[in-house]
């Protein structure tokens, strides 16, 4: 971890220290800790822009990314997705729902023994590819699984 970050996180009144540090030019605004959520990636309206925002443009297709997701979602509001990456040196796993208004859904950075595996439940606005992008060794890799979402209306 960046030593400057660690020290700032440890100090009480961290917010004030950060403000002072920014004002004094010691910390550039882009380094301000509170703004870590990658707004531009998460607010992108298409996969290409989202990946660009995440520094993972034009990933190579990979057969070493396993996406476990339903063929037809029972309910688009809660779709279980499990991702396993067999790519050596996997640093992070991203999940995007290609046809969602803002496709970027999650980014998981793994370290200190965490296996290249994540499981979560996502929302899908409609039938879409669930795209996974993995960063490893300075490169990015991608796989996709199509998940159908029906607007049932009977739920019977």
């Amino acid at each position: 971890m960046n030593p400057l970050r660690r020290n700032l996180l440890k100090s009480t009144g961290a917010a004030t220290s950060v403000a002072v540090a920014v004002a004094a030019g010691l910390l550039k605004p882009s380094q301000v800790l509170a703004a870590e959520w990658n707004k531009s990636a998460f607010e992108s309206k298409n996969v290409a822009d989202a990946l660009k925002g995440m520094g993972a443009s034009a990933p190579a297709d990979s057969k070493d990314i396993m996406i476990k997701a339903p063929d037809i979602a029972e309910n688009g509001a809660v779709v279980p997705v499990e991702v396993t990456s067999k790519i050596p040196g996997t640093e992070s796993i991203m999940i995007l729902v290609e046809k969602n208004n803002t496709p970027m859904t999650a980014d998981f950075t793994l370290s200190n023994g965490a296996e290249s595996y994540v499981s979560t439940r996502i929302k899908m606005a409609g039938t879409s590819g669930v795209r996974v992008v993995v960063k490893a060794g300075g490169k990015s890799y991608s796989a996709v699984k199509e998940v159908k979402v029906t607007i049932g209306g009977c739920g019977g």
Partner: protein
Amino acid sequence: MAKRIVSLLLACLTMGAGLAQADPEADLAGLVKHYKDRLPDLKPQDYIFGALAYNKDSMEQYLSIMDFPPYLNDMDKAKALWNKPFKNGKTFGDCFPNKGKNVAGDYPMFDDASGKVVTFENAINSCLKANGETEYDYGDMKTMGLVTAYAKSLSDGSKVNVKVQGKGALEAYEKGKTFFYSRRGQLNFSCATCHVDNVGKSIRSDALSPTIGQTSHWPEFRSGTEPTTLQTRFRQCNIQVRSAPLPQNSEEYNNLEYFLSYMSNGLPMQTPVFRK
């Protein structure tokens, strides 16, 4: 003894003269046979899963979500509601045998004294009333929905064991059965149109579940997070065939629940569950 008549379930639309020959056991046997013919691959123990049992993809999602369901914190709240003492110091458990453990399978039951079907939700409200508390609104999922989600979970694994005995009970049962087989709404469907005649087929991309096993797992958490009682679901289904929904705890819905619950007799209860 009244003669046993094996009813032709698909044509049971006129019931006026049939009350004296009401035969719930034969009705259930008839449905069991019908579903064996229509759904030959559905194992008896899988009826409680309804349409989820039709394919692996659905079942896997259900099992994945049930492994750590989104409603667990709601269940903690529900448990707290169930255990919270009334002003007089008593709790819900004091109103039921066994502190409420393994009792839900007996509901609905018929109360000869009042001449009415008594649902589990009625029992909850009777308990509140008897202890000087305000009864819940049957349609309020934050109270009735949550309390019954926890209360009925105390009967998990026990079997549905609805009794229909005596003239009053048989009449109420037959009324519920008539409702089930009567067409209604702008779409002119009866419950049976979907869940008996067209069981296993899809309507609006949803597969139709069999009647047997439908009532053993309520309330549900729809979408994983929205508590829903059985009669809330009746209202939703009525709306879907463009029929005016009836109020919760209406006589028609209570009789319907009585009939439907008998059709799940012998099956294990499990509450709450995830459904889409």
